[in-house]
């Protein structure tokens, strides 16, 4: 099976495919490390504040209001759990769809899907407590415009991002993101597979089906008869013609690929072809099973001892698992409880954001001498967090807490504004 061999050399298979439990433990590990880091950083921030307090005026206060920070000093800060982190990331994946929609013309589906997978990959080894998704989200979308041949200038791109996000804000984390992506940019999507499968089915329905090499007994006529006598699916009115049925199946499957396949762990756990066939199973099960029969022979056609019978059983288990995963996805917009939970997570994150990572300037790829020195200093000299803290404290003071005013939950802003635009 040469196609499988090709897929196994892809970076998606080599670096970004996981067993369910190893994906889980990677995320737990990331969350644990980030939580430890946040607690340490907040302790240092407190110490820095105390020493600054002795010199009175203009106390820099990263926690917004005084009562809050006093309280924070007493009890240990509560960090996000790995599950909360995942919910948060999913929320920002949905934001990518919205943001992409707001451009004129809207960014192609493939660009948005790639950006979503970048964001999901990024947060396997990074925590939202370290890098807030609202700063990473526009950056992954911009990178995806470059890697998926939809390049526009950064300025033009930045104009489309609502709020006061500047071009600099967008490009600053680029290198950090690329490093977290381990410099692999290619994402293998299930969309093309779906196109091909539907073309095959259309050809079969017109009597132009080709027999699978392993099943030379199939004739185009048999195949055509089979496809026109399939039992109706739940979603298909009995009366519809085969071509209507195919068009509907195509549309519904593609919608699943654009939403559920993006927002769940499907890409990490399954191959592109498993994903699209699982989505087709959800939108028209008899049709999807017929498609598998054309490749592997139906259960009636083959004896139990045939290797395909075993392969088919195994494959169906995988496909059904993937279907279940896809079916479990509920968009946030249609889920009031999840929305409420998101607000709570947003507030929680506000208090457990790592203050030492608040400024990404050190990560920026700038050619000027001063910036380069600063970057080198911050990267190679982790032993001086105090001086870095002072610098950040000063910066916050200069900004006069501006950021906090409309920052209860930065992401919300994007969604609301995007909605306005769509109307």
């Amino acid at each position, binding site marked *: 099976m040469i196609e499988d061999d090709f897929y*196994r050399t892809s970076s998606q298979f080599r670096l970004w495919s996981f067993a369910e439990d190893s994906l889980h433990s990677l995320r737990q590990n990331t969350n644990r490390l980030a939580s430890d880091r946040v607690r340490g950083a907040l302790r240092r921030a407190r110490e820095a504040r105390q020493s600054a307090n002795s010199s009175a005026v203009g106390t820099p206060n990263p926690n917004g209001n005084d009562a809050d920070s006093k309280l924070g000093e007493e009890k240990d800060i509560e960090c996000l759990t790995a599950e909360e982190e995942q919910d948060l990331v999913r929320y920002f994946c949905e934001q990518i769809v919205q943001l992409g929609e707001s451009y004129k013309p809207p960014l192609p589906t493939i660009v948005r899907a790639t950006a979503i997978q970048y964001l999901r990959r990024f947060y396997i080894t990074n925590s939202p407590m370290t890098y807030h998704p609202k700063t990473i989200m526009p950056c992954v979308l911009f990178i995806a415009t470059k890697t998926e041949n939809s390049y526009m200038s950064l300025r033009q791109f930045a104009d489309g991002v609502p709020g006061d996000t500047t071009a600099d804000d967008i490009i600053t984390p680029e290198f950090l993101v690329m490093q977290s992506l381990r410099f692999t*940019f290619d994402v293998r999507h299930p969309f093309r597979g779906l196109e091909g499968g539907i073309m095959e089915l259309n050809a079969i329905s017109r009597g132009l089906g080709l027999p699978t090499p392993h099943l030379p007994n199939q004739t185009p006529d048999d195949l055509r008869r089979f496809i026109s006598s399939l039992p109706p699916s739940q979603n298909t009115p009995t009366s519809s013609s085969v071509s209507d049925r195919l068009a509907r199946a195509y549309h519904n499957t593609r919608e699943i690929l654009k939403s559920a396949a993006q927002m769940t762990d499907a890409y990490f756990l399954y191959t592109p072809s498993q994903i699209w066939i699982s989505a087709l199973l959800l939108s028209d099960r008899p049709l999807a099973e017929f498609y598998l029969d054309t490749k592997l022979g139906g259960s009636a056609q083959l004896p139990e001892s045939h290797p395909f019978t075993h392969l088919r059983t195994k494959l169906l288990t995988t496909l059904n698992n993937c279907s279940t995963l896809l079916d479990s996805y509920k968009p946030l917009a249609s889920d009031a409880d999840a929305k409420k939970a998101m607000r709570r997570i947003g507030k929680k994150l506000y208090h457990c954001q790592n203050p030492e990572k608040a400024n990404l300037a050190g990560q920026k790829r700038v050619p000027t001498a001063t910036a380069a020195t600063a970057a080198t200093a911050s990267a190679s000299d982790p032993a001086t967090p105090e001086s870095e803290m002072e610098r950040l404290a000063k910066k916050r003071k200069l900004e006069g807490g501006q950021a906090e005013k409309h920052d209860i939950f930065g992401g919300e802003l994007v969604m609301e504004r995007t909605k306005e635009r769509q109307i």
Partner: protein
Amino acid sequence: MAVSPLVSPSASAIAHRKNDATGASVTAQKNEASPQFVQHAADREITEQMNDEVRHKYIKTKKLGEGTYAVVFLGHLRTDPSSFVAIKKIKVNTEYRDGLSMDAIREVKYLQELSHPNVIALHDVFSSKDQNLNLILEYLPRGDLEMLIKDSNIHYGVPDIKAWMGMLVRGVWFCHENFVLHRDIKPNNLLIASDGEVKLADFGLARSFADPYLNMTHQVITRWYRPPELLYGARQYSGVVDIWSTGMVFAELLLRVPFVAGNSDLDQVTKICEAFGTPTEENWPGVSKLPNYVPADRNHLMPTQGREFFLRQFPTAGPVGADLLMSMCTLDPRKRSTAYQALQHNWWTTEPRPTNKEDLPRKSGGTKKMGDDLTRRGGELDDDQFKNAARQLDFTAMRE
């Protein structure tokens, strides 16, 4: 994985070949499982630690070349000083404010995915502390095909050409099989490993096949190697654009000078017409609808050239070789050979046999040449005259 569609696929073949091909160089690091995340390096983020691990594997030794786009160093594995690599450090472009440049993104994107004996291997990528991108590439110390073509002291014959072309077409086939268009095939992008293996390099203009009906830019491929459909401004094209270039390399290997070397895009069209015939609706249905098509002067129509012409023009190729070349330089892209068809041609199995790669003609000074080749941007010719050829990529128009 199959190295060619015509040999039986074997899982170990590629790893084995890779060791052969690179000689003293490193074996592929790409196939390693995810490295263990070191938990206790206190102040480094997980991804920084992973990056540090990669960076720590290599030692830079000396500079091999420097261009506007990149600096190339010789390096080796820390654990084995005899395992050479080329380290290509991509420069920060002060003019370009939009982050990592498209050339670099394309090169990294596609080389990460392509693993084949006739495609330059990308072993690793890491960032250095000044946030520069470093590509660890296969060490290819024997220069490129252009160097051999131009050096009149080097003598080579049809068996050598057959060996080089075989390796080139297998590399192109592999790219296309992975839905990647190279879009800059020319002799100085064909580098040579210590064992003589030819490697397709410089993926700065590469892209995946577009979905049907989506437009791509026609401003790609260095002019002398650019097919007529791109010169006519076609925005939808296939892998056979690379086959035209491959055919031009074939012709150049036979003649030892570029076969159709126009000094402007228009001149290139004229020279192609003179050499292969004037494209018309008869020999290429639909050609007159291409955006930059110029109707030919009725009085100067050149007839489409047949087999006799190719045999007369390229006598050394022999009738079978001339037939293969003709199939690669067919004007109508729909009738041009694909890489797969080219590999099935009977020239490969006709006498004389191709030279063993270890016995191919060689030339010293290749390391310097590799340094120069790897610092160039895609689409650039060394020649000043062509400095701006194919550089103005029209990205905005591709969003349609």
